[in-house]
């Protein structure tokens, strides 16, 4: 499926990104080439393969992962906000939404 400039515009809008016309023109062939690369997978015949999600063991068995409802130690406020660009009053502060 060829990627067009209107696809790029839609993706940008969904991601709340404002891009210039120039950026849109530049991004379109770049993203198109990435998609084309991944699309090579479609050449494989998967009609005999069960769809799968999650991890597998070397023997091809599904991994079984679940946890009991037991608390672990959380990071706490200070550590949680340590890498945030603009923490304030214990919160992540962001440009106004709503």
């Amino acid at each position, binding site marked *: 499926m060829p990627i067009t400039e209107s696809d790029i515009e839609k993706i940008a809008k969904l991601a709340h990104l404002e891009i210039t016309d120039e950026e849109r023109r530049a991004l379109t062939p770049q993203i198109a080439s990435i998609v084309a690369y991944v699309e090579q997978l479609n050449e494989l015949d998967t009609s005999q393969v069960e769809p799968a999600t999650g991890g597998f063991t070397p023997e091809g068995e599904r991994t079984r992962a*679940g946890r009991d409802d037991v608390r672990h130690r959380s990071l706490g406020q200070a550590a949680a906000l340590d890498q945030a660009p603009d923490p304030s009053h214990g919160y992540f502060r962001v440009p106004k939404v709503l």
Partner: protein
Amino acid sequence: MKENWEAVIGLEIHAQLSTETKIFCGCATSFGDEPNANTCPVCLGLPGALPVLNNHVVDLGARAALSLALHINEESVFSRKNYFYPDLPKGYQISQFDRPFSERGVLEVMTATRDEAGHVREWRPMTVRITRMHLEEDAGKNVHEGLPDTDRYSYVDLNRAGTPLAEIVTEPDFRSSWEAYDYVNHVRRALQWVGASDADMEKGNLRCEANVSVRRKSEEQFGTKVELKNLNSVRFMQRAIEYEIDRQIKLIESGGRVTQETRLWDDRAGETRVMRSKEEAHDYRYFPEPDLQPLVVTPEFIESVRAAMPELPEARRRRFMQDYELSYNDAAQLTSEIALANYYELTAKAASNPRGASNWIRSELLRELEAADVAVADSPVKPEELGALVRIIDEGGISGKQGKEVLIEMFATGKTAAAIVEERGLAQVSDTGEIEGVIAEVLAANPPQVAQYRAGKEGLFGFFVGQVMKASKGKANPKLVNELLKKKLSES
């Protein structure tokens, strides 16, 4: 609603499942902690962090599904729902899409026709089709007020991010706001009953959204639907739907068209307002969550959950009406929560008087509990003790009026009914010989009144009753006093 119009309503309920920890990490789900304290790399969406499913979510999800008559899929798949918002740190919500945890429920719900003021006229059963109930994680919370510079900034608290939710979606099966109201209350009670959710709307652990459209009764096609949000209580939801039905009918009748949009209910203003139009509709680009295995539950697991479920509230209400000869309203009140239903049955058994137990619980005990703000499960008066009190009254040991005082003291002190009756010397004298003796004394002490009574002044009867009761210090069984006095006074 206007004569020739019909409303079509569908509901979505998000209920928080009652776990200790989040759905994909071990952070606490507790409410009211300092912002962002209950977070870790998984729920903060840090790179490389991997989700691991909380097994208890599956257990509670199964209980919720079975309590709503849903079919549980032996295999369901988690999917990523992609959108960008500050309360969603990963840029996607882990939810379920094309293969939900459970689906196709057909639920019988009692609903009432009501008068203009909302008072119940008559209850009737209605069938609601539940499309699906899937499992997902909650987002965090954006704070827009109460902090500095909220005209320029929003604040994000991720304590709630990753809290387990069950999303319950119905078909458009409701035709009035009250049907929707009765359904939400039914779901709330069912989820609380089986211990799947606290379902407390004030704490935000049950949230609803309504899709509302209207059409002329002659039309087959649905009208354009409007999504209602910010419905913070069941009553708000009912009012918002009512307002919206009215708004849409007026709009169409005056030649306008309903636009597909999301509207918020403003209870103070009593109206709904546009939040966003559907032109900006989201494209969520769902795809299967590659970091999680499909959720597999065995038929044995489903059966074990089913076997461990308590008798469901509607079944229990019907049984109370049948076995204990209670009215619909009384049985419905006693099955409003499981702790109360359990309390009632134990009391009825101890009292050997199901209707008496019902009356004493509904008119006396519940008032005391409410005044003291105590849950029925923590009642200082145990059901066996309340049953014993009812039995003492039934056997004529004390009067009903005394019983009320005894119950208040039982409630305050935790003493048994028998101990209080004994201590306060309340036990009624029901010994015929003893009462006859007192009557004889009273009559002997008041010859003029006796003569007047016998001469036809029957109004004096109350005087004699009073004298006898006084002489017995209030302990004589009033019914017996009446009987024996009549007999004595008519002898001459």
